[in-house]
């Protein structure tokens, strides 16, 4: 494997800025890696090598000219296919958007390009970000680099797998109910869901507007923080964007000091029903935090029991409305326009042909939950549960600085196991959903491999809104201590991929 592939984004950027290596060379190495392993992993839906190399050469030229460049300039990156980028297709993993080239850049995309990051391509995902396994992609599933018979998590399985397969040092994810954190957990990578409003949703194809949030995915805590800083901050194009500076996430990631930090273990997220190896690694990590000077207490958030139910009403409701625009009139797929059918018939046929099963399930549930006569019982009640969850968090953060839990109840499961069992699939997001409902900051960090299956386990850290820096403080403390304990990064233990060709 090329020497550049295992290095952190921070190191690569420093070497590029110091002209010890060129961005072109780093980019080329990653494009070759994608070429070699992505047929098996299938982390990418679209790769534009020419464009990436041109962008890399542009950074190299700016460095050579002595121009100041950002702290991640020249580093390759994979962009989840739910964010728009001019000159590239955006499919959201759906047939209905096959071949659609958006005429505008998402704010996140624009900030990445302005900061000199080199976009390699678009990463695979569950269709419209609905799923926890990336099996709902209309373009075929992504495989987990730890065990290619298993799922890489979802919806951002492509972004997580690209990191674990060393196809990119950085990727962007989006998190509606755990789509950044759960894939991070099952692939042994770092994934952060910023405070709702901390990163812009402009150009992020909406699943559930009140829950969606883009965030950084990386192999190290510092890399995630550097990427967070690039994409974060106020955006006047997003009404829900917070008009305040990004918390000092990079400083926190460099510090990793948890002395005196009050850590609350959420009683409702753990114990019975959790895979023993997951619980074991989680408990060990909490003990480690304690040994590093954190003060650990147990905290109860009783309303979390209802979070999953509330989420699976709020999300489908918003998504049934957000996905109405996919109607064959202005963009995307059009089916059955034979000159005899009406616009309404063509809409019906196109949506039937263009959407996958899970998308249809959620649209119909949402249509039901919002319809007159059912609104109060379903959508209305779910909104009340949301209030209770916000209150539980507020009460917890009165006494602790951060909350922790396992990121997911289990490690990666075999492909196909939950495809036609929606409720089992939904359970994967049990621990991650409350943060989306409350809008606070949340992240997953790798804390080892479950003894029974040798697969990665993630620990979730939750911080109050706009206290994203605390996530990185905890993540960096764990990373430092565990790397020392393991004698290297967890990802050193990912099985070598047989590189098909070079």
């Amino acid at each position, binding site marked *: 494997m090329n020497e550049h592939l295992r290095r952190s984004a921070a190191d690569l950027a420093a070497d590029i800025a110091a002209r010890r290596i060129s961005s072109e060379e780093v980019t080329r190495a990653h494009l070759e890696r994608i070429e070699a392993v992505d047929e098996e992993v299938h982390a990418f839906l679209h790769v534009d090598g020419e464009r990436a190399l041109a962008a890399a050469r542009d950074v190299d030229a700016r460095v050579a000219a002595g121009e100041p460049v950002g702290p991640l300039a020249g580093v390759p990156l994979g962009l989840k296919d739910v964010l728009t980028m001019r000159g590239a297709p*955006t499919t959201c993993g759906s047939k209905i958007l096959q071949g*659609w080239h*958006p005429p505008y850049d998402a704010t996140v995309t624009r900030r990445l390009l302005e900061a000199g990051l080199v976009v390699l391509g678009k990463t695979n995902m569950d269709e419209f970000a609905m799923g926890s396994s990336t099996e709902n992609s209309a373009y075929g599933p992504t495989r987990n680099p730890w065990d290619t018979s298993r799922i890489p998590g979802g919806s951002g399985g492509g972004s997580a797998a690209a990191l674990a397969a060393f196809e990119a040092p950085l990727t962007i994810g989006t998190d509606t109910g755990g789509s950044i954190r759960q894939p991070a957990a099952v692939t042994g990578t770092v994934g952060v869901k910023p405070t709702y409003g901390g990163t812009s949703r402009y150009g992020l194809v909406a699943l559930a507007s009140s829950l969606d949030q883009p965030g950084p995915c990386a192999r190290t805590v510092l890399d995630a923080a550097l990427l967070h800083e690039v994409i974060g901050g106020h955006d006047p194009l997003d009404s829900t964007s917070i008009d305040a500076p990004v918390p000092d996430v990079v400083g926190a990631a460099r510090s990793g000091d948890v002395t005196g930090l009050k850590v609350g273990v959420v009683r409702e997220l753990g114990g019975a029903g959790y895979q023993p190896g997951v619980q074991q690694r989680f408990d060990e990590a909490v003990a480690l935090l304690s040994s590093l000077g954190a003060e650990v207490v147990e905290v109860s958030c009783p309303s979390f029991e209802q979070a999953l139910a509330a989420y699976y009403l709020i999300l489908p*409701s918003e998504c049934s*409305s957000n996905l109405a625009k996919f*109607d064959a009139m202005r963009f995307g797929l059009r089916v059955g326009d034979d000159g005899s059918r009406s616009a309404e018939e063509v809409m019906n046929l196109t949506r039937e042909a263009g959407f996958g099963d899970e998308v249809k399930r959620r649209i119909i549930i949402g*249509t039901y939950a919002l319809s007159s006569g059912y609104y109060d019982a379903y959508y209305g009640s779910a909104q009340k549960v949301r209030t209770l969850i916000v209150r539980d968090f507020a009460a917890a953060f009165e006494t602790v600085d951060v909350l922790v839990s396992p990121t997911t109840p289990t490690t990666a499961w075999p492909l196909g196991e939950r495809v036609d069992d929606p409720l089992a699939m939904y359970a994967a997001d049990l621990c991650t959903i409350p943060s989306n409902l409350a809008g606070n900051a949340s992240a997953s960090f790798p804390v080892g491999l479950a003894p029974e299956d040798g697969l990665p386990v993630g620990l979730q850290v939750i911080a109050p809104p706009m206290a994203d820096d605390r996530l990185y403080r905890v993540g960096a403390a764990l990373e430092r201590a565990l790397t020392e304990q393991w004698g290297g990064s967890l990802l050193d233990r990912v099985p070598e991929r047989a590189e098909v060709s070079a």
Partner: protein
Amino acid sequence: MSAAVMDYDEALAAFDPVMGLEVHVELSTASKMFCGCSTAFGAPPNTQTCPVCLGLPGALPVVNRTAVESAIRIGLALNCSIAEWCRFARKNYFYPDMPKNYQISQYDEPIAFDGWVEVDVDGEPFRIEIERAHMEEDTGKSLHVGGSTGRIHGASHSLLDYNRSGVPLIEIVTKPITGAGARAPEVARAYVAHLRDLLRALGVSDVRMEQGSLRCDANVSLRPDPAAPLGTRTETKNVNSLRSVERALRYEITRQAALLREGTPVTQETRHWHEDTGTTTAGRSKETAEDYRYFPEPDLVPVAPSREWVEELRATLPEQPHLRRKRLLAEWGYTELEMRDVVSSGALELIEQTVAAGCAPQAARKWWVGELARRANETGSELDALPISPAQVAQLQQLVEAGTINDKLARQVIEGVLAGEGEPAEVVESRGLAVVSDDDALGAAVDAAIAANPDVAEKIRGGKVQAAGALIGAVMKQMRGQADAARVRELILARLG
């Protein structure tokens, strides 16, 4: 299908009409409700669109502050309460001219609610209660191709232009209007006219019904008597002029009355007004109507206008139109009839500005409602769109009063000003239109007229002074209207007296 109708007087003798009016007003903001695209009218198709107003995946709305201010000012002018906290909502239904397949509107939390207006119906006040005024966005426009008439029915396909998509709208909804009786259509017309004047005075909209910047949907139902419960209503759309408001309601009342008389229940439905035939036809019935599945718009945060902001906006409100009209009536000494003509020809502001420029109110009224209204009518333009200013009209009147020109010449001066020949004084100069009062020039013309009309001259000599008119006319004709008529008369009488 042309439904049977009952004679109007007969219908009103048998039934009591109850109306509800929904008026949509396009605001005249520079940019759209949720994006920076221009709202300018008449641009080439799809040139004023962006990811937001095209509803492209990923795009997000951001509220136009001026649109919110206009909504609050409209609410205040309608004597409404202004919400302390309200949200936008999504109204979900599929329609190709609505890009997102939901309209961002307001549902159970309108920005303004519980107001009233007093309108003038043939000189009598009539109070109309306002239910709400809320903010929403307009849709795109479809062009139906392949049908014989350009109508939706029978078309083979449609072409969509999204330039109007996302233009800010305010929807103003009345409470049920009762007690109007036979005057219901007139009350409705007076109400829409009142809104038009009010919105124009607020400066928030162009209020051009013919361009669709003010649109009215008229609900009406009939009941046997005012004590009976409300009957089944119909909602008539596409009512695009003041005259249509009155006609459409009159038609719908007579149609429903005919149905009820023969024992057929009225169907609750949307109906379309056809200006050409003066009738309404049924649209989709409400049974198959959409369930709009309203819910709070998650892409927008709530609007919570501070009381200070509301009071600041209240301070910008113009005088209420009916109060202003009363005040000006007294100040200018017009009759009720004269005032009504002024208002209906859209000349009120213009006259006010002309008077402010120093013109006598009656003279200002004469020019605007007479000569200028006639010319606007001929060219099909609005009075205020004529290329003559109130200051120029005041100047014209000054020239008349100074005797430089007479009324007849003034009409030619107006023609010159409208043709872009400059200020009235310049037109007088360049066209050589000044009245001649020079005795030498007039004397020669008078002598010629006497010589040409000896019998008339004889009558005057015999004491029939009123016969002088014929000679004055002859002089005027000879001098192409530019003679000072009073001086000509003096000269004639001096010669023949």
